[in-house]
């Protein structure tokens, strides 16, 4: 008989006391054994499902056929409902009791977090890079122009391209410190928090074993993360909240992390390790890791920390959401016996980094989660800081010290790893200040160097240059909105909507002009209700969400492997949205521009600034001038030029 977690006995006693009544009720309600096929759930979950079903049936009967029931049947139905309420109450009591089980002697203690002043500044970092660059004999790229710097910084930090006005103010400023001032300004902006939140939302989303986004609540995760980044909460606190989260995702967006793993210990273990430590220990789930020192036992000892947390649909009358809670009566975590697959072997939780001791089997779920969170974010766990720094570096330089960025070893080969170690150790000692880390990297010459093709011989050269990479879905979405003056966030789902219902009749024969008109109308309507933008952000059907299903990319994918797709190209080439944005008509960006600007060169400059945040090169001017001449129709020619800019490689790249 396996040991059970505390409170289990208490709970079981309560339930067992009602068992005869329950059995009768189950028979009464004709509850079937459909839940019995979920092998993962413990026996208690089956009982709970049966009782729940009986209660639901009883409720339906009382509601619809009350008159037909005998008093005895009515009493039985009521008893079934009461039994379910009592069960829920028992689960809640056990869940609440889990919170108070703090005083378990076998739990390790952790030293309080120390915060020292950072010693690695931008100049020091440049020095380190310069040394490694000269050792690699790599030619160093020049520092970028103000225009290029602005576009890169806005995309990397604010997640969008600069507006014409922002670009003008920055480029014309004579302030010598204008770059670092812009860095500070953007790091303090709401856009930075939103951009970072979307990045980390995607980190979770693209690997989630839970395939149903409605059970995870990504918009709430994004909102929660935005709040944390806006408050510049240190990374260890954010991580701790994500690992130990409970409650429903609408009340606590951090719960989405566990819900994305379906609250399954092995999935939690794999993702916590990958996301927060850059270690792919989940490979050791079935066998000892082939190329890293991790053993199968270590994986399961780690996974044992996450036992006891469970997910369920929230039990209230509000909108259907999901929540994490401590499930009482769950057996100890055990791993499959490789010798005899019908057996399993109980496992005691133990962290695999450093010389951690086993954690007592009697610790409650909350205590175990709090303990593993403390182990992970501890200032003597180098993997934790390095994983974050490597991601930030990769997003700002176009390549990480380790690639793929979430597979850092041990036993993996990286580039200039000693620089990562130095920077990460300093960041760790100084208390995981996220904005601080960005500030140091963004102010380096290394960050501000011109980009170079990654695959060329001189490309991969210990960060002697920046590397171009493809924009994430959110960035492209905002870039289109900004370049073409389209309020895309306010389109109420019209963006990439299937619209099958309407399609049969009207839209089938609609011309592009009619479609553009309909779109215009919806934009005008949206413009009248600016507050709609805020609510739509929480909507899974929001245009941004739909756009991301087409353009989104797992941010853990190496940049070289992020390739475009045919539907993306089709969208940029032919979609009514883009078409509406590139045509020169009344009240369109291009229409207004052509009307107010007779000089073709000035129009071309404006378009380049608007779309690519820079002036055209002499070569580009020549190509366009010849094109305008050949086409012989100014409006058509500039529509084609604008179309080409929006469809260009540069538009969907950061460089």
């Amino acid at each position, binding site marked *: 008989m396996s040991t059970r977690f505390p409170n289990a006995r208490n709970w079981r006693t309560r339930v067992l006391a009602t068992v005869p009544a329950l059995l009768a009720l189950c028979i009464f309600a004709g509850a079937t054994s459909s839940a019995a096929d979920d092998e993962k759930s413990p026996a208690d979950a089956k009982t709970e499902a049966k009782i729940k079903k009986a209660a639901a049936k009883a409720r339906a009967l009382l509601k619809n056929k009350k008159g037909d029931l005998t008093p005895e049947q009515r009493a039985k139905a009521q008893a079934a409902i009461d039994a379910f309420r009592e069960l829920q109450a028992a689960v809640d009591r056990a869940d609440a009791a889990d919170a108070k089980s703090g005083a378990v002697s076998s739990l390790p203690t952790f030293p309080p977090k120390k915060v020292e002043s950072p010693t690695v500044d931008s100049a020091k970092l440049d020095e380190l890079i310069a040394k490694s660059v000269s050792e690699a004999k790599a030619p160093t790229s020049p520092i970028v122009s103000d225009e290029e710097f602005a576009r890169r910084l806005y995309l990397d930090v604010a997640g969008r391209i600069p507006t014409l006005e922002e670009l003008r103010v920055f480029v014309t400023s004579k302030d010598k410190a204008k770059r670092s001032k812009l860095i500070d300004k953007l790091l303090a902006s709401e856009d930075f928090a939103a951009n970072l939140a979307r990045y980390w939302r995607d980190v979770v989303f693209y690997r989630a074993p*839970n*395939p149903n986004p409605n059970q995870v609540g990504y918009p709430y995760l994004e909102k929660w993360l935005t709040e944390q980044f806006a408050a510049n909460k240190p990374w260890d606190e954010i991580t701790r909240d994500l690992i130990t989260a409970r409650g429903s995702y609408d009340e606590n967006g951090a719960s989405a992390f566990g819900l994305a793993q379906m609250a399954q210990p092995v999935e939690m273990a794999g993702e916590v390790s990958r996301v927060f430590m850059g270690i792919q220990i989940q490979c050791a789930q079935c066998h000892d890791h082939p190329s890293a020192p991790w053993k199968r036992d270590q994986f399961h000892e780690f996974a044992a920390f996450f036992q006891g947390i469970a997910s369920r649909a929230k039990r209230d009358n509000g909108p259907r959401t999901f929540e994490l809670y401590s499930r009482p009566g769950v057996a100890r975590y055990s791993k499959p016996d490789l010798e005899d697959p019908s057996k399993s072997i109980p496992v005691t939780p133990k962290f695999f980094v450093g010389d951690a001791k086993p954690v007592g089997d009697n610790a409650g779920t909350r205590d175990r989660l709090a303990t593993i969170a403390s182990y992970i974010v501890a200032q003597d766990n180098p993997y934790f800081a390095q994983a974050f720094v490597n991601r930030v570096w990769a997003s700002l330089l176009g390549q990480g010290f380790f690639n793929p960025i979430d597979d850092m070893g041990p036993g993996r080969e990286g580039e200039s790893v000693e620089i990562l170690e130095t920077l990460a150790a300093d960041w760790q000692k100084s208390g995981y200040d996220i904005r601080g880390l960005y500030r140091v990297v963004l102010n380096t010459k290394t960050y501000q160097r011109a980009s170079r093709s990654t695959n060329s011989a001189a490309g991969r050269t210990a960060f002697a240059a920046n590397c*171009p990479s493809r924009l994430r879905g959110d960035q492209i979405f905002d870039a289109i909105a900004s370049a073409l003056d389209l309020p895309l966030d306010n389109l109420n789902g019209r963006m990439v909507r299937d619209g099958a219902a309407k*399609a049969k009749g009207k839209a089938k024969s609609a011309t592009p002009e009619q479609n553009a008109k309909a779109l215009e109308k919806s934009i005008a309507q949206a413009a009248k209700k600016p507050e709609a933008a805020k609510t739509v952000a929480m909507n899974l059907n929001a245009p941004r969400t739909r756009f991301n299903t087409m353009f989104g990319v797992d941010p853990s994918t190496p940049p070289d492997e992020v390739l*475009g797709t045919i539907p993306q190209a*089709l969208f940029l*080439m032919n979609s009514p949205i883009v078409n509406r944005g590139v045509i020169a008509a009344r009240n369109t960006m291009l229409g207004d521009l052509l009307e107010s600007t007779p000089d073709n060169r000035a129009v071309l400059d404006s378009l380049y600034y608007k779309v690519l945040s820079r002036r055209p090169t002499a070569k580009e001017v020549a190509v366009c001038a010849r094109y305008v001449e050949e086409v012989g129709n100014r409006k058509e020619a500039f529509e084609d030029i604008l179309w*080409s800019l929006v469809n260009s490689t540069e538009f969907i790249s950061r460089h």
Partner: protein
Amino acid sequence: MEKTIVKVGMNHEGVVSRRGFVQTLGLGAAGVAVGGFTDLMAVHADEIRKKNMACIVLWMAGGPSQMETFDPKPGTGNGGETKAIQTNVSGIEIAGGWEAMAPVMDKVAVIRSMSNKEGNHQRASYQMHTGYAPTSTVKHPGFGSIAAAELGDPKFDLPHAVSIGGGPVFGAGMLGVAYEPFLVADPLRLPENVTPPVAAPRFSRRLGLLNRLDQAGFGSNGGYDRVLEHQSIYRQTAGMVLSPRINAFDIESEDAKLRAAYGQNAFGQGCLLARRLVETGVTFVEVRLGGWDTHDDNFNRVKKLAGTVAPAFSTLIQDLSSRGMLDRTLVVWMGEFGRTPKINPKGGRDHFPRVFNVALAGGGVKGGQVIGSSSADGTEVKENPVAATDLLTSFCHSMKIDPKKENMSPIGRPIKIVDGGSVVKGLFA
């Protein structure tokens, strides 16, 4: 490597009338009748698709009830009101409501002993599409993407895998976007955004300008590799937009009688589209139909669904057969699991992965047989249990794909196309 496959959401603003579409591309006036053109294309389909094999999956989303489809149990408590009907194979009875299938059962093999453990829709669908349970470590490719990667010819200018009917697509996963199924939400309309908003000559002119600007700008300023990749995708996309083969997506040229036989509904027309695509050289097509999650009113709801599926399935088999395509086209009817033998108080059946059924035809499958059986009360597999991996291994066998081939995951872990499993005994002639 060429990238030809993808999936796309649908946009109702993206559709121009079919006539407009053909005119835009300058094909309507080219003197090639649309049907004639497809026939022309079909001649080349075999050369286009390596090893000559294709697969059409009719996916019954929600989990079809085995007792109301191909494993009826008339006269038993669990069997409920469903009757059994005779087919053109003596000894093989199927559920009432599926009369349209009766004349083709000599070409169909029914497996009545499918067995699995996963009772959650999404997880079970993942498993039945990929052969693996979902995990955060690896995104396993669906069988359609595997077939696309293994058999699709890179020079073919339409997607190798297509998913018709919307809903979640089990995509290419670790195989990469190149093998993502291309999503067609509504078979009655052309796929989204395939129609340029400007006439073909101007579209081509634009593409020329785009290439020149890409090379003059970013291409000579640090973005050389990115531009090359981008141009490769654009070349292929433009190739598809301008390809005469895109007419395969247009089912309006099909004979009215045949269209009616498939059924005047999205699923029936989707099956017809599937045949057209396979004929043109597409390797894998899935046609989805939802509504099978019959927790209540199971009997009436399945009867209605059968009225949609049976004529389409039957016509598809006959259509492929009469065109000489059935031997090289594997047709599979399946869902993510079966339903509880016991009828619940709402007249429904709940999730039941322990016993369910699958029907297959073509692609070398020996028709007119039943493989495996369920116990009299339907609660257990009586003989020859078949697992998801066995089924996928059999798909591989039919399509001449090596199921033991290993693909590398992004972190360098080798993943077999199918892990374990063996070809279902007796399924193939």
